[in-house]
């Protein structure tokens, strides 16, 4: 396309071509590829190796453990219209969020004001401009050849602190965007390859520890500049024309390869699932009145695999957005899908926005997956994304099973986390999330147990980090970091084992902690397990203020090393505390000081297959490693010391199961009566009503399944008010599946 077009014209042209032809940029033939496939391969390899090597170099500039040690860092090359061409490893969430950021600037006429010029630096963490949440900060520079903008280079890092009300980078309790910290709303923050002083001062004044953000910014900018430099040499080798056509062909090739992979491994059809994370906040003493409620966010997911190999994700029937930081929007939903794409479907290093073109997400406006309130908070969108995509991993697993790719099946894990806020051992204000959660155990696989201490759904390169690094980050001293026996999801292949950390406050007289889980700990189950595998057991956290630990230490008494041990000691009086909590509810502790305690468990993913089919040798290995007790192994797996004992116990359990079972028709008839009257707890009832407020999809499914006429749920428990969507600027949008092309019209709809 010629220089005469503005970026906006180029973007619209590209979108039009895709709509009209169904291929990226209307490309029918991969001419460069077909002419010389090995040269094309060399071109791609040159771009990719540049991106990967720059990322590995630039991360040493950073200051966040999240960036250097936790791989929460990605860099990519984009077309002038903002489509991803090649990407490094790292937080794959951001492949398309950067795209949306670039498109946001183009669509909002940044070319005219504030202008896009060589040497400019743009930054964003704004959900309306494609971002996920405030701690994920994107830095982006344009690349020019003469007067022509030929590429963008963008990079994202996750910041441990972003100026939230509570302190850590992600807010758990903020009702709206006004508590979720510093927003950089797609802004020009630098010129002539340097950050502007006013921007750096803004960071200083709005963050508790601006050095982290500033150094990470420097890392990202340096990386972008290094890629820009390398790109010049690539242009020297291949020429500008080859480059411009080559990057577009790479995206179209990425699209085709994605479709091929889906066709080769999945079964066309519709796959349905539901997630219901429960959020309880009424017990938290210090919470905004608008956020002081308990509720369930229901997300209804329908995954359609078409015969052509495209994927469609439809969330019709989900509940609405609300005054909490767990809301999603197209940015977070795209991010969530990218982690799925790169871990399950396109992990060979060739993924780019071509794969994105093979996927359509239908996000009903005003729902939890597409909040349209201008003041919406997404600080912890992950507490919604994790359940949704855990479910989608499961649905993909079912499809693989049907096709025989059992060894590809892997299930995810709920995320739990600790935030620390106050004053640190260096007498400085601090606020951060301890990212050891990046070493959570994951769920069972189709052919093996989940990994104990593995990786969360949001980052395949799982890493727990050194305790010594976290002790230097904040005023906490580990007194234990170990597995919790018997606390895994049971199955023929079990979920990765739960592990936990317990800390004592050290070096601070004024610090508090937020302890939270991805909506899972309060009773909502979304990591369901597969084919008889169990969900993981419950969640727990603890804190204790004003403890006698100092005396305990002086006396040489046994110190607690786990959450359960601390709880037992608090209960029997060996540990005394002014106040304490140990249980499964979100917590914002009171102020803690030297010798106070806090702890959390990070539980593993779900199980696969009937526990009674678990191999004895695997059980015995768990016993030897202290991951199970013999009593639990007997109860859950029917384990006995000999194979005969085991068989006998298993037979007994099977018999007991039969005795406890009733025919499905009987169960249905009994439950139908309940379903008719809506005899469920208040937050469940409200959840159904909230779903029906914005869509009748779930309501109709409910009526159809229970064969009843009237939907019994009417009270949403939410205040009634009007919220206009933002106006006056372009932002990424999505909506429900168009009714005209409804379910019946879908290709591959072969229920």
């Amino acid at each position, binding site marked *: 396309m010629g220089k005469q077009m503005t970026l906006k014209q180029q973007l619209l042209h590209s979108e039009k071509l895709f709509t009209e032809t169904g291929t990226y940029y209307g490309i029918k033939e991969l001419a460069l590829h077909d002419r010389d496939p090995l040269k094309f391969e060399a071109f791609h390899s040159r771009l990719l190796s540049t991106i990967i090597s720059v990322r590995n170099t630039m991360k040493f500039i950073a200051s966040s453990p999240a960036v250097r040690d936790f791989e929460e860092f990605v860099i990519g090359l984009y077309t002038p219209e903002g489509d991803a061409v090649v990407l490094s490893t790292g937080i794959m969430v951001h492949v398309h969020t950067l795209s949306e950021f670039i498109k946001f600037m183009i669509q909002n006429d940044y070319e005219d004001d504030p202008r896009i010029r060589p040497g400019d630096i743009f930054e964003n963490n704004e959900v309306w401009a494609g971002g996920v949440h405030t701690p994920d900060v994107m830095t982006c520079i344009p690349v020019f050849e003469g007067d022509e903008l030929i590429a963008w280079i963008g990079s994202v890092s996750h910041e441990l602190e972003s100026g939230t009300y509570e302190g850590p980078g992600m807010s758990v309790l903020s009702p709206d965007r006004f508590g979720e910290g510093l927003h950089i709303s797609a802004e020009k923050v630098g010129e002539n390859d340097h950050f502007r002083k006013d921007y750096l001062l803004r960071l200083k004044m709005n963050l508790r520890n601006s050095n982290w953000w500033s150094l990470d910014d420097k890392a990202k900018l340096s990386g972008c500049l290094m890629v820009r430099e390398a790109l010049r040499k690539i242009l020297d080798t291949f020429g500008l024309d080859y480059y411009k056509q080559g990057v577009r062909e790479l995206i179209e090739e990425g699209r085709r390869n994605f479709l091929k992979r889906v066709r080769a491994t999945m079964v066309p059809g519709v796959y349905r699932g539901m997630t219901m994370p429960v959020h309880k906040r009424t017990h938290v003493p210090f919470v905004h009145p608008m956020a002081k409620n308990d509720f369930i966010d229901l997300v209804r997911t329908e995954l359609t695999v078409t015969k052509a190999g495209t994927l469609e994700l439809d969330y019709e029937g989900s509940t609405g957005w609300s005054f909490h930081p767990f809301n999603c929007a197209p940015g977070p939903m795209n991010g969530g899908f990218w982690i799925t794409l790169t871990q399950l479907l396109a992990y060979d290093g060739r993924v780019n926005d071509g794969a994105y073109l093979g996927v359509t997400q239908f996000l009903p406006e005003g729902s939890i997956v597409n909040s349209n309130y201008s003041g919406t908070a997404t600080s912890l969108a992950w507490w919604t994304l994790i359940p949704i995509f855990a479910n989608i991993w499961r649905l993909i697993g079912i499809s693989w099973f049907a096709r025989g790719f059992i060894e590809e099946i892997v299930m995810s894990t709920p995320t739990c986390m600790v935030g620390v806020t106050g004053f640190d051992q260096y007498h400085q204000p601090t606020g951060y999330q301890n990212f050891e959660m990046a070493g959570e155990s994951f769920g069972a696989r189709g052919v093996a147990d989940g990994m104990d201490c593995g990786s969360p759904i949001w980052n395949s390169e799982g890493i727990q980090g050194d305790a*010594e690094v976290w002790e230097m980050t904040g005023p906490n001293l580990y007194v234990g970091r170990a597995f919790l026996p018997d606390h895994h999801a049971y199955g023929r292949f079990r979920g990765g084992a739960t592990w936990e950390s317990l800390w004592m406050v050290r070096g601070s007289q004024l610090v508090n902690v937020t302890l939270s889980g991805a909506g899972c700990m309060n009773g909502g189950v979304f990591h369901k397990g597969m084919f008889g595998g169990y969900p993981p057991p419950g969640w727990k956290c603890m804190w204790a203020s004003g403890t006698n630990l100092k005396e305990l230490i002086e006396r040489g008494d046994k110190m607690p090393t786990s959450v359960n041990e601390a709880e037992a000691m608090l209960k029997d009086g060996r540990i005394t505390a002014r106040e304490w909590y140990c249980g499964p509810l979100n917590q914002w502790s009171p102020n803690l000081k030297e010798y106070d305690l806090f702890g959390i468990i990070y539980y593993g993913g779900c199980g696969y297959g009937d526990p009674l089919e678990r191999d004895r040798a695997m059980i015995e290995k768990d016993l030897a490693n202290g991951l199970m007790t013999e009593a639990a192994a007997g109860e859950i797996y029917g384990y006995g010391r000999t194979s005969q004992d085991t068989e006998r116990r298993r037979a007994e359990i099977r018999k007991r199961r039969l005795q406890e079972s009733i025919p499905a028709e009987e169960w249905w008839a009994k439950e139908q009566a309940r379903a008719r009257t809506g005899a469920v707890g208040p937050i469940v009832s409200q959840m159904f009503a909230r779903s029906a407020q914005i869509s009748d999809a779930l309501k109709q499914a409910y009526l159809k399944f229970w064969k009843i006429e009237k939907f019994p749920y009417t009270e949403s428990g939410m205040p009634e008010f009007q919220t206009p969507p933002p106006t006056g600027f372009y932002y990424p949008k999505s909506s429900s599946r168009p009714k005209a092309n409804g379910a019946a019209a879908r290709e591959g709809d072969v229920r």
Partner: protein
Amino acid sequence: MATDQTHVIGKNWIALDAGGTMTDAVIVDSEGNFLVGKFLTNKEDESLSFLGSISDAARTANRALRTTLRESEVIVYAGTIMLNTLLSRTGAKVGLMVTQGFEDYLLMEKAEGGWLGYPYADRLHTVTHHHSEPTIPRDRIVGVQERVDMFGAPVIPLREADVAAKARVLLEAGVEAIAIMFLFSHMNPAHERMAAEVIRKMSAEIPVVVSSAMAPTHKEYTRLASVIAQAYAGERSRRHFNKVEARARSEGFEREVSTLLAHGGTVPISTPRLYESYVSGPIGGVLGGQYVGELQGSGNVVCCDIGGTSFDVGIIRDGKIPISREPTLLSFRTNIPMIHTESIGAGMGSELGVHPLTGKLTVGPRSAGSDVGRCLRWPVPTVTDCHVVLGYLSPNYFLGGDVPLDVEAARAALEPMARSFNAGVFEFAEKAHLLVCDYMREFLVNMLRGRGYDTHEYTMMMYGGGGPLGLHAVIEGLELNDIVTFPFAAVFSAFGVLCAPRRYRYHQSILAACPPSDDSMSREVKKLAVESINNTWKALEERARLDFKQHGWRFADARLQRSAYVRFTNQLSDFEVHWPSERLASIEDLAALMKRFEGVYTTIYPTQALYSEVGYQILEVALSADIETPKPKLPELALSGRNVPSSAEKGARKVYWRGREIEFRVLEMDPIEAGNVINGPAIVEHPATTLLIPPEYHVEFDSRRLIHYRRGAR
């Protein structure tokens, strides 16, 4: 094996580099002349391949093994003993004592143990991740109640009774050694020392290894990996080394056998920290590159090793070899200081394939190793098959003709692949070769660029069995200061081992800061930093003095190199900064050290990455104590004129080159003399390697018989 230099054996120095497939030996006499030999590595009993390789080298000068060994002063054996002990799980029965509450650490492997060392695709592909079986079973791991904080202050005291009770459990389990790792022991080793003392009182004969005495640096997982490596494999490896030494002595050698440590120093095998002999990359070549660079007056050298399985690169800057502080040891990162090299899994034996979904050409990561390719006995076509088809390699002169290669089998295997790329078999074979070399070029260029260096500042040294063959394609389009390869390229790494000095290297964590301002409080902080750095250097010198004493080396002869690791405040990574004097004399010296840091930093990163306004932190210092040793001399020979002797001529053969068959002159390597010039197209054959000289290039053998590769005809 043929000789490469004139050979007068006096008092010899011998180096061996044992790889997974071959053990290479180089024997250097007091005149600096050398002989080379090769022998298939015997993993069950390395003493056999050790002797076999020396024998092979000695035979080239018609020397008997016994005479050679009797006349030898030093033998350095570098290689895989440590690694094999770990891989084969044949280490000692070790008990582990850790801080209470951390007993599951070996099962956890910091989570990253599940994917560390994986290629890009598998790092993303979560379902492939898994933990390794721990070297120490869970029932031999005990925790004792204790804690030291990040400043080194004891928080929870260690009690003798607790240690004794837990140690008893280990002793009753029949452990052969006990490893101890407590949190922040690098900031205060008192608890670890006390625990060791208690255990020694209980059992004097059980070796106790404490993490603070190995490498007292930050990050407990790295200290844990190191202390286990020493306890589990260090002493067990010593037995293997002792066996090698006994075998050498039985054949007439009268001294101690030495080994190469990961940081590039050699020490006798009686060294207390034998775990440092764990080497993960081909570091011998980098040492050789540094030495040849010195001879040539080039301080900036990029060392490239093309083997069968991988391509390895090491970078020497201003004559100094960079040290990596967290190399991976199987599925753990350790804190063994190691010469920094990086690799990709593409070598001349790499398998070629077509991706079933994308239709792309895939290279590696599997390699045929000594089975070569379809042309010998590997079921899948490899890059070497392309070389045979193209005529680069003579099917009748592989390993000197010992192993005939089947050209037709190679062609038959490549043809279907070529068809899937719409190419003829020659065209495909050439492009596949070029693509593999492209990967290598991109890799090394990115490595240089990632450090802020330009290729034109660098001399490339290319070696490894595949080096001289890949050279022409790897350098395509690169501007380099000079390009050098060697007649003995295939054993250059063993040659490099002989270039290593006697050396110990020490690292120690500290806490020191250099604030940006100059007020009185800041000056106090800076004074404390100067004091802390100086005291730590002094303490490390004391450690060196003790180690030197054990080997009877004169500490006064040592060349000491001191360095500090500096970062901007809050930064997580730091950079080694050398300090040329004995101590920091003042806070002005500290400021000068910070300036040096910024110099190092801005070589790598753009100036936008500087953050001087927040000040600096120094969290680790290091000391290297070296004694220089005789090195192979590479003597300067009289130049014989441009023309190669007729004894080198082997005729000509057809080679497929850029779309057509052309005739390449064929020569034998050994008879070629200093001063000879060979214009391309030509192929120079050696039993262990093949040098390809394209049209429009020539090579020149300089007075040391180093081969300079240059554009144009001469």
